[in-house]
């Protein structure tokens, strides 16, 4: 009965919400679309003062689309270092890094006391492994020039960040820093080193997210090898497909502002693949496995939300047709990253209140994270109204995902799939509905975008799932994925790390 109540509420909210959004979208039909078909109407100039669309005039002139007034495409310009953008990107990179200890706390608080260090180590060691891998080959594979021009992977020309610092005169130590210019029609650029490091943090956190599914039983050595293989074989290609201009999904026009597909969908679905070989925790689901330290988890939620501003607003650096990292687009992404998780925290909390009787702290925190996940692919593409709706839906849908897990009884210990997988998929697809800024979606009259989003989701999800299955299978047959049953019962902190979390 209660289930029907909240499902009915969900339907009502979504439908009620679609009306004003559709009305807003109607007005925005005049804005020039970016990567999609130029067949859209372009009667009125795009500067509709009431709505906070990208203000910069050159940003409207996407190469294929006919710009209002000036039909000629502006020429390419040389990149010029923009210190404001660079400062912001340096801060953003640090913010995203902070998300990983935040994730460690979020996950760590949710496991049993005997496994707290092991769980936190999963996130922390990912920083180490991916940090090194990224410098050596990861950056080159993800963002290097395309290998064989197929849009699948980068080459090795930027191994060890080769070319990002150019030695001009070794005798005096004079160097030149390569610049990253997102949009060649605008001069704004940041040092490519900064861009590389910004992206490094994304690679680190993506693989750490998967550890949520395997908590409390995975063998640490197997996990370390998994991290290295997954980030190289799954993350790097996906980043190349979606975020590099040569990438085949980018060329198709798939929209992923900050990583709904590349980060959340991929990690979530990979978690599921890993679980197929890992198996459930000993004693699941009958034994009591309640979170041992929810204050840690809530602290983690706070750090995640804080860092996510760097994750989403910093991704304006790769926004369509703009070279402004610190500008209006970042402001929009910041705004949606505030509204969506706030709404999602509330909607999860209220859904739980109605369905189970009490609003839980863990529920609110989980809702916030779900909202952050869902808004990630859409942060710079949707307007605040859409962000609000997406947030409400995120809380409800991911809450439903958790209930589904409880019913199906598969042991995704920390809901890596339930929140990140389901949330990332939903967010990526719904971006194709609500996109109105820098791109157009279903409500703006472009049905094709939704199809492209679905293709991207299926391609990326399928690839991640299959490759992860193979990696996991190999690890299972060679090193072995799980610790011994006695070690698992005694606790991984003791048996894997010879440590105890609390010696108070």
């Amino acid at each position, binding site marked *: 009965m209660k289930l029907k109540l909240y499902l009915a509420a969900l339907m009502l909210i979504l439908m009620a919400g679609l009306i004003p959004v559709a009305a807003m979208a109607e007005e925005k039909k005049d804005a020039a679309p970016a990567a999609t078909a130029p067949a859209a109407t372009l009667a009125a100039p795009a500067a509709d003062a009431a709505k906070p669309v990208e203000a910069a005039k050159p940003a409207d002139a996407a190469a294929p689309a006919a710009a209002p007034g000036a039909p000629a495409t502006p020429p390419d310009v040389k990149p010029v270092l923009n210190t404001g953008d660079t400062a912001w990107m340096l801060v953003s990179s640090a913010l995203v890094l902070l998300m990983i200890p935040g994730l460690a706390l979020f996950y760590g608080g949710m496991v049993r006391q005997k496994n707290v260090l092991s769980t936190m180590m999963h996130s922390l060691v990912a920083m180490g492994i991916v940090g090194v891998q990224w410098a050596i080959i990861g950056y080159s594979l993800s963002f290097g020039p395309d290998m064989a021009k197929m849009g699948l992977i980068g080459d090795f020309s930027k191994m060890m960040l080769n070319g990002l610092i150019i030695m001009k005169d070794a005798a005096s130590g004079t160097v030149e820093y390569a610049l990253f210019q997102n949009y060649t029609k605008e001069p704004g650029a940041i040092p490519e080193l900064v861009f590389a490091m910004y992206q490094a943090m994304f690679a680190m956190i993506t693989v750490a997210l998967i550890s949520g599914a395997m908590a409390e039983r995975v063998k640490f050595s197997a996990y370390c090898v998994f991290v290295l293989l997954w980030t190289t074989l799954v993350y790097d290609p996906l980043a190349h497909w979606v975020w590099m201009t040569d990438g085949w999904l980018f060329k198709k026009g798939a929209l992923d502002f900050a990583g709904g597909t590349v980060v959340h969908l991929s990690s979530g679905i990979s978690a599921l693949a890993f679980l197929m070989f890992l198996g459930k925790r000993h004693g699941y689901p009958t034994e*009591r496995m*309640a*979170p041992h330290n929810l204050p840690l988890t809530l602290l983690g939620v706070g750090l995640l939300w804080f860092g996510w501003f760097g994750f989403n607003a910093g991704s304006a650096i790769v926004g369509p047709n703009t070279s402004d990292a610190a500008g209006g687009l970042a402001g929009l992404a910041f705004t949606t990253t505030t509204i969506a998780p706030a709404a999602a925290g509330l909607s999860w909390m209220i859904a739980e209140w109605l369905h189970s009787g009490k609003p*839980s702290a*863990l*529920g609110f925190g*989980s809702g916030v994270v779900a909202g952050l996940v869902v808004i990630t692919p859409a942060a710079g593409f949707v307007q605040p109204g859409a962000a609000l709706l997406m947030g409400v839906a995120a809380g409800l849908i991911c809450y439903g995902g*958790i209930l589904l897990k*409880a019913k199906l009884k598969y042991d995704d210990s920390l809901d890596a799939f339930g929140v990140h997988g389901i949330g990332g998929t939903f967010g990526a697809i719904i971006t194709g509905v609500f996109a109105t800024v820098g791109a157009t979606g279903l409500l703006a009259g472009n049905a094709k975008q939704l199809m492209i989003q679905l293709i991207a989701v299926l391609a990326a999800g399928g690839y991640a799932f299959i490759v992860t299955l193979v990696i996991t299978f190999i690890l299972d047959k060679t090193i072995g994925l799980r610790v011994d049953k006695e070690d698992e019962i005694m606790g991984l902190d003791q048996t894997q790390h010879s440590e105890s979390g609390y010696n108070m």
Partner: protein
Amino acid sequence: MKLIEAIIKPFKLDEVKDALNEIGIEGITVSEVKGFGRQKGHTELYRGAEYVVDFIPKIKMEIAVSDDLVNKVVETIQNTAKTGRIGDGKIFIIPLEEAVRIRTGEQGADAI
């Protein structure tokens, strides 16, 4: 000599301890335990996983007394630890064969 074991609600500890001090009892041992009797537990819900918590935290007091004080001590504990609601606890009286003071070696009544 008897060993009186009292299981009481944790928030009653200070009250009981003060009352016992007033009637001349100078030594008590206290431990944190959990248990249940007729007072049932509660359920906790974490992300869709429901757990029934059977055990409730209690305080166990152990007091060694000479036989003539037993009734007074039991009465004191019962009066101060009682709330009238389920879960107030129990008192057990166990015969104590011998007691030794470690510092001096005194035995018997001198040790308690």
